[in-house]
């Protein structure tokens, strides 16, 4: 303690070296092709120029890093309760972070920083991936002081929170039944395995088989005589039979792979309830466990396709706002193979009630036209251009065109039919998907920002788009009735602004 942060402070003076090496690294990364060329032409280059050039380069980097050092200051404004970082030589940026928004302060040391004997201090607030404030060179003592000062409020808060938790915990221990309230059976996993992730597995298999096929062809090229002999043996009938067989084998392989993957990943899936949170554990070889805290949940997605509907299963995906653990940020937590009652139980725990669909918003038919244009029109155009101008041989594959148009057209049509936005007093549900139909559920209080967008020729038609940004991703709906959208936006804004509801 005792360090004074209320005045703008520079980094450690040795920090210039850190800046120097980082800038050098940056230049190196940007200019490595040129450096490589120089290295190869080393003998041809005038050595004097090279040395002078190098010296100039190092000198300029040195000057730049010195200026960077001079212009980088940080201070802790105790009056306004904010942490301010000023940086930039020509382009200046002043970042101000409210102390109570700070979630984490990390002190790190990279290799270069270790050599020089300084530390890096990162300030992180909730939500986004990136660090909001980074001090690249600071002595260890100062870093620790600053960290404790930055987290002063946090400390008080977390102590009281800890107390509350420990109280709750003792209370909870009495009720500690911890027996799972949902257990996903092996049978459900089998069902999930045979009804989901077709595209992913088919793509994998196609890559696999095409490489094999290519290898076969290479092999064939070397033995043209062999190939010719073989050619006479293969008659039309056999070819169609092999194709049919191949498709069946592919299909079965997809199913088996899917089932195996699902079982390996989700074997013995248990969901237990604890203090209002959900404890999940699953996995065959290594058991994973995660906690879902209802207040941190941002987007909940319920997905099912036609087969799954018939079998009475569905998949839940839950996205939480996390700060800290990097790897967990992007990925959603999946609960495969729930029954409808289990879904309701989970949703009730998360939202305290079961989300209902309310007012329906449908997209305008122009959305279908546009997506057909994008996915069929444009590729067809490119195909034609390639065929007529560059490689006429692609027309040998023309018979594939109608199949592609039909299948893509169908997918787009179903996507359009299923695309809906349901707005209810407490929930916003976006339905989407062609085969796997999913409902993304958010609560209006989780909204961070709202973007509305309208093309100028859509003004008269009164259609427009909306994007809802949350800390767990965005929900977007295009070409709906714009007056309704605007009205709902006003309502959501009103709700967010009149309550200090916690979004995490």
């Amino acid at each position, binding site marked *: 303690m005792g360090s004074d942060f209320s005045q703008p402070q520079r980094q450690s003076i040795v920090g210039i070296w850190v800046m120097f090496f980082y800038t050098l690294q940056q230049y190196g990364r940007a200019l490595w092709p040129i450096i490589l060329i120089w290295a190869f032409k080393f003998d041809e280059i005038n050595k004097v120029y090279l040395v002078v050039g190098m010296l100039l380069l190092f000198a300029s980097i040195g000057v730049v890093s010195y200026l960077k050092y001079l212009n980088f200051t940080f201070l802790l404004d105790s009056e306004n309760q904010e942490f301010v970082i000023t940086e930039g030589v020509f*382009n200046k940026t002043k*970042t101000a972070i409210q102390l109570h928004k700070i979630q984490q302060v990390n002190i790190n040391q990279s290799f270069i920083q270790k050599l020089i004997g300084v530390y890096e201090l990162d300030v992180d607030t909730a939500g986004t991936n990136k660090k909001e404030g980074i001090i690249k060179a600071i002595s260890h003592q100062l870093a620790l002081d600053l960290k404790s000062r930055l987290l002063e409020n946090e400390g008080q808060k977390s102590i009281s929170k800890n107390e509350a938790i420990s109280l709750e915990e003792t209370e909870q221990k009495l009720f500690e039944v911890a027996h799972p309230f949902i257990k996903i059976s092996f049978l459900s996993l089998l069902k999930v395995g045979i009804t989901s992730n077709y595209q992913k597995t088919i793509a994998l298999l196609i890559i696999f088989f095409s490489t094999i096929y290519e290898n076969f062809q290479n092999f064939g090229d070397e033995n043209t005589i062999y190939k010719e002999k073989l050619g006479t043996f293969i008659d039309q009938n056999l070819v169609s039979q092999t194709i049919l067989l191949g498709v069946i084998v592919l299909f079965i392989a997809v199913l088996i792979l899917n089932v195996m993957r699902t079982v390996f990943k989700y074997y013995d899936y248990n969901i237990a309830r604890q203090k209002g949170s959900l404890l999940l554990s699953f996995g065959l070889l290594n058991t994973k466990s995660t906690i879902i805290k209802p207040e941190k949940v941002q987007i909940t997605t319920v997905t099912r396709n036609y087969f799954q509907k018939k079998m009475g299963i569905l998949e839940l995906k839950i996205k939480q706002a996390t700060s800290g653990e990097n790897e967990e940020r992007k990925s959603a937590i999946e609960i495969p193979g729930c029954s409808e009652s289990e879904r309701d139980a989970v949703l009730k725990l998360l939202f305290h009630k079961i989300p209902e669909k309310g007012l329906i918003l449908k997209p305008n038919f122009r959305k279908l036209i546009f997506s057909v244009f994008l996915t069929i029109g444009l590729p067809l155009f490119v195909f034609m251009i390639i065929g007529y101008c560059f490689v006429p041989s692609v027309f040998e594959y023309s018979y594939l065109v109608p199949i592609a148009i039909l299948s893509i057209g169908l997918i787009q049509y179903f996507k359009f039919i299923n695309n809906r936005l349901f707005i209810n007093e407490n929930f916003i549900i976006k339905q989407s998907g062609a085969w796997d139909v999913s409902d993304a559920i958010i609560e209006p209080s989780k909204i*961070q920002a709202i*973007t*509305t967008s309208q093309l100028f020729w859509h003004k008269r038609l009164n259609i427009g788009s909306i994007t809802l940004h949350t800390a767990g991703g965005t929900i977007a709906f295009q070409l709906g009735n714009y007056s309704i959208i605007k009205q709902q936006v006003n309502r959501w804004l009103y709700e967010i602004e009149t309550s200090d509801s916690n979004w995490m």
Partner: protein
Amino acid sequence: MENFTNDTIDTSHLPKFEEVTFTNLHPKYFKVVLINLLIVISILILLPSLVFILKPELFPGRIWMILGVLLPIISSLIIVFSIIGFKKKGFAFRNHDVLFRHGIIATNTIVIPYNRVQHVALHEGLVSRYFGLAKIEIFTAGGSSSDIEIPGIEKEQAENIKQLLMGKIKKQL
């Protein structure tokens, strides 16, 4: 609890975000846009011209012709779009949220309630600084797509706005 009421909201009487009058960017910022345009376009035109004068054999004549036609078209498009883009940009600070409007073909309006603002930054570009202008960057937890950047605000006003925002954030605690 006794004072707690939960009346139905009459959505038609809520303040309408679409009827807010937006403040346009500072006229000086137009000069900044023009200078930036000048830099971009001079690089876009000068660089190929230099290569053409010094080393015309680098590309065959056809490609030079295509470049000669395309570059002016692209440049004039960039000019037109930046000018329209400048005119379309506008911002508004309401009591409880900040609005930013932008977009050339589509008109986008982004609204951030003050109680969702995570932190605020003030950015001064080299050219902007010369004209005494600054850019306010407002960050939320929703990732880069939900951040607002309002350029072309006078330095002093920007400082004030930043203070205002910080005050608003604090009040929400």
